[in-house]
């Protein structure tokens, strides 16, 4: 995007709450000024001062302080949304809005939506509508929910919010008008009266997808329970059914890990709630994976079915107890496999302690091969720590490198994962240990935040199959959050060069296919891609090598199915977290198969009067002109044929007028070099010079034989006009 706005998300600011905007540019980004803008619920805009970000740097803005600086009373309870604007070729920032209520141990983290979706304008005709499906659940009876609806456009948008129970029965419906740039916060009061412990939310509004930004949350201020409310666009009815696999990694069960410093007696219970947002029944197979020592174990849990639009709390703890290991205590991963339309199963998974205060949300993610994955943010500041979980879904062991980036450095942590094995670690450990990595790097003890990347040992473009999750938790504040984005490295651009290309009939030229990753690194895929010609009677292509067959225009295409597209996803936006979402890059180049047709002068290197006393010297008693030029052969369209190795010869014929009494013309030969160029020397000497104003004309006929060919191409004749004062070729 040429001028981008990263997107918007909803801050809420109340006297007892702290709303912060946190954003992290990708480590490969250079300094980019970012403009934060706050919109209050009534659409009032407050543009804040620009923020400059270092690559991998993090900036935090206190919404409360920013509003206070604008003269907004700090005791007011406010809602609204955030927009950040910056200019960068792609979505380079991960921006989160983090609402923390330490008094009630509540935390909500919302990640801003990317510019492309934000800029979608509401439907002018009002005919287009969009629908979001959500999933609510009650961890305990007093949990309530809310959705916020922000309108980033300049026209009001009307929306309907429907709340259903686990059987898809409608509990309530709300019609809401959201003013331009305004925000509406809607409490889902129906949840409290419902006997169901799970259900659905459907938000329908006029306009294209994301023309209304919808976020949701679940909370119980009494216990300190808070969690996000997953929302997603349902699959289109035309989408084909496929097999999909998701995994929730790092779900805790039983006693808390002592290294995490939770209060004594803290025990965690895993949970999993699902909702089918497609029109087909889904049959889901959950499988539990856990580690005993260094050995991975798994057990298939009972398969369950979810009718269309129904919600179901799986009571995961009971499933594990009945089918899994007895008295399971530790960390586990749960996979969900189903055959159906992609993105048709909304899932909420995680772990919660017995007091429902500590909620470790785990967002299920698609199991898919990728290249490097990036974790946009980690923190060990102010009592925070970041717990990273890596799981190897493959049947083979994998060696990986987990690299921590921070301001001024990096630190490589080699990770060996056996088949289906899991590894969990706190980033604070790497800081505290002060053990140099293989490159001798350590993380300075003063470092408190940064980003991270998981790669194969061969670098960012090595294909790996790993699931990564991370959570920033704070025992003192009793908060756990995922205020980060996971980015899958991959292609942001691909192209074929030369574009356009030109190749002579019978000649060859090599094209290249290059992909540029989000990191800026370029990879040559010429030899590993599929190439095709739009017209093989004009030209063929193999591994990028184009062969000209007959004159004409054509298109050469290259594609590589195994290169992942760059994917940037932030939790809270995409509950079907397949990273990458797509694979395959392609590119094309238009070109011409050229026929040598003409020639043109590119440059004149010498041009001067000559006589019998100069060099070159005319015969005694004669004078004339000497001119040296650089030329190139042109094709049937007038384009240059930039092909070396063309063998050129010439013949010359004196025509009329012949005022200078020229009776002979000599010829030479050349081979094109340096990109298709050749030289020509025009010399004329006449006994009538320098006094004669006359002119002698000649035709220069150039014959071109292309490399590896015997065919002679007779170029259009060059009209040479010789005078005592100069020599021109085709008037130049």
């Amino acid at each position, binding site marked *: 995007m040429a001028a981008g706005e990263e997107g918007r998300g909803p801050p809420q600011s109340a006297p007892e709450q702290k709303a912060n905007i946190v954003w992290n540019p990708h480590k490969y980004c250079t300094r980019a000024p970012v403009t934060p803008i706050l919109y209050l619920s009534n659409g009032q805009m407050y543009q804040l001062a620009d923020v400059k970000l270092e690559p991998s740097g993090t900036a935090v803005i206190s919404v409360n302080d920013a509003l206070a600086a604008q003269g907004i009373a700090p005791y007011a309870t406010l809602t609204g949304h955030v927009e950040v604007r910056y200019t960068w070729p792609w979505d380079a920032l991960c921006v989160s809005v983090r609402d923390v209520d330490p008094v009630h141990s509540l935390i909500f983290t919302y990640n801003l939506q990317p510019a492309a979706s934000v800029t979608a304008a509401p439907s002018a005709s009002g005919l287009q509508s969009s629908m979001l499906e959500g999933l609510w659940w009650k961890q305990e009876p007093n949990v309530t929910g809310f959705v916020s609806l922000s309108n980033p456009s300049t026209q009001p948008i009307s929306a309907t919010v429907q709340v259903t129970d686990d059987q898809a029965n409608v509990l309530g419906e709300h019609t809401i008008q959201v003013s331009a740039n305004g925000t509406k916060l809607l409490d889902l009061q129906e949840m409290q009266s419902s006997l169901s412990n799970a259900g659905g939310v459907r938000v329908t509004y006029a306009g294209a997808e994301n023309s209304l930004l919808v976020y949701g949350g679940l909370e119980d201020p009494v216990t300190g329970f808070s969690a996000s409310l997953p929302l997603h666009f349902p699959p289109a009815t035309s989408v084909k059914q496929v097999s999909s696999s998701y995994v929730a990694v790092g779900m805790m069960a039983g006693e808390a890990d002592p290294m995490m410093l939770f209060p004594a007696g803290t025990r965690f219970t895993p949970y999993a709630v699902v909702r089918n947002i497609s029109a087909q029944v889904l049959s889901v197979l959950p499988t539990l994976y856990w580690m005993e020592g260094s050995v991975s174990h798994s057990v298939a849990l009972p398969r369950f079915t979810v009718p269309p639009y129904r919600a179901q709390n799986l009571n995961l703890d009971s499933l594990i107890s009945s089918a899994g290991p007895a008295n399971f205590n530790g960390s586990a991963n749960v996979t969900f496999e189903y055959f159906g339309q992609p993105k048709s199963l909304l899932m909420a998974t995680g772990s919660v302690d017995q007091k429902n205060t500590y909620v470790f949300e785990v967002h299920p993610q698609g199991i898919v091969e990728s290249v490097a994955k990036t974790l946009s943010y980690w923190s060990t500041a102010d009592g925070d720590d970041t717990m990273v979980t890596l799981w190897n879904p493959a049947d083979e062991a994998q060696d990986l490198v987990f690299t921590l980036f921070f301001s001024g450095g990096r630190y490589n942590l080699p990770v060996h994962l056996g088949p289906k094995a899991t590894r969990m670690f706190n980033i604070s450990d790497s800081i505290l240990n002060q053990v140099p990595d293989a490159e001798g790097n350590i993380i300075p003890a003063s470092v408190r935040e940064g980003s991270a990347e998981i790669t194969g040992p061969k670098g960012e473009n090595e294909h790996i199959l790993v699931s990564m999750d991370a959570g920033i938790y704070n025992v003192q504040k009793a908060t756990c959050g995922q205020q980060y984005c996971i980015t899958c490295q991959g292609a942001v651009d691909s192209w074929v060069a030369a574009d356009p290309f030109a190749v002579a009939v019978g000649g060859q030229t090599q094209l290249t296919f290059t992909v540029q990753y989000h990191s800026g690194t370029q990879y040559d895929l010429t030899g590993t891609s599929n190439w095709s010609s739009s017209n093989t009677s004009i030209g063929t292509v193999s591994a990028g090598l184009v062969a000209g067959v007959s004159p004409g225009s054509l298109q050469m295409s290259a594609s590589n199915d195994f290169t992942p597209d760059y994917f940037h996803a932030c939790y809270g936006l995409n509950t079907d977290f397949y990273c990458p979402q797509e694979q395959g890059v392609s590119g094309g180049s238009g070109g011409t198969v050229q026929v040598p047709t003409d020639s043109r002068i590119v440059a004149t290197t010498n041009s001067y009067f000559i006589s*019998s*006393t*100069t*060099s*070159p*010297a*005319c*015969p*005694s*008693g*004669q004078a*004339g002109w000497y001119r040296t030029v*650089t030329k190139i052969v042109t094709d049937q369209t007038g384009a240059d044929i930039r092909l070396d190795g063309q063998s*050129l*010869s*010439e*013949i*010359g*014929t*004196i*025509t*009329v*007028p*012949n005022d*200078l*009494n*020229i*009776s*002979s*013309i*000599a*010829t*030479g*030969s*050349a*081979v*094109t*070099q*340096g990109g298709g*160029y*050749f*030289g*020509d*020397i*025009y*010399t*004329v*000497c*006449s*006994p*009538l*010079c320098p006094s004669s104003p006359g002119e*002698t004309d*000649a035709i*220069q006929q*150039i*014959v071109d034989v292309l490399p590896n060919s015997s065919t002679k191409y007779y170029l259009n004749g060059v009209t*040479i006009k*010789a005078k005592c004062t100069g020599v021109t070729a085709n008037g130049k």
Partner: protein
Amino acid sequence: MAMKKVAPVILSIVLLFGSARPQLGGFGSGYDKPLAGFESHREPAIQAILRLGLESKVPIGIIETDEQLCKAKVDVAAQGQTPLQIIAALIAQVSGYSWSVKDGVLSVQPANMPDGPVRLLSIAIPRFAAPEGTLDSQRAILWMQIRGVLEPGEGTAVSVMRSLKAQTFPPIDMSNATVEQILDRIVSRAPGGAWVLFPLPKQSEWRDKLDVRFIAAFSYGEEASKVRDVSCQPYGGNSP
């Protein structure tokens, strides 16, 4: 006015030079420097001679007055012999030709030289000056001078195409030198070369046959393989 075709060249040179080879300097020493090996089997004599020049860096001038140098197929298998020894072995297999070293150039010519070539090569050029350029361009300037002597009332136009990266010869400026002396001087400088004068028509026909390539030019370029492309049919007209 009717169009008038005019002859391409009166004199041609066969140029032999190697792009990445050491510069020629004091060519006389090259004659006595043994070659590791030189072999020729059933090869036209003119090609063998030119190839010898190319491989030994010895400047060569060849005057042909008949087809013997093209028709005669020579056999030589020499190891550790000097170019002079090898040329002697080659010419011994060609009836009616001899060799000598003249003006620092290894010259091959008929044992009995006809008047035509002698007269042409003896033409005195008042001043021959050419800027740095390809051997072909300097040869063309020489041809203009010859034309100026033979037909002083007529002018000459020259178009000489050239490869931009072709090896160039240094500037040259000679006064009152014969055509042969100029040719010898041109090919004796780095990077070196050879010239060939093919059989001439009668002097009385020189002007009438100006539109016929009765004296053809050959350029070996920089690859030894070009030697094999030397034509033994010089009457090609003003066409490539």
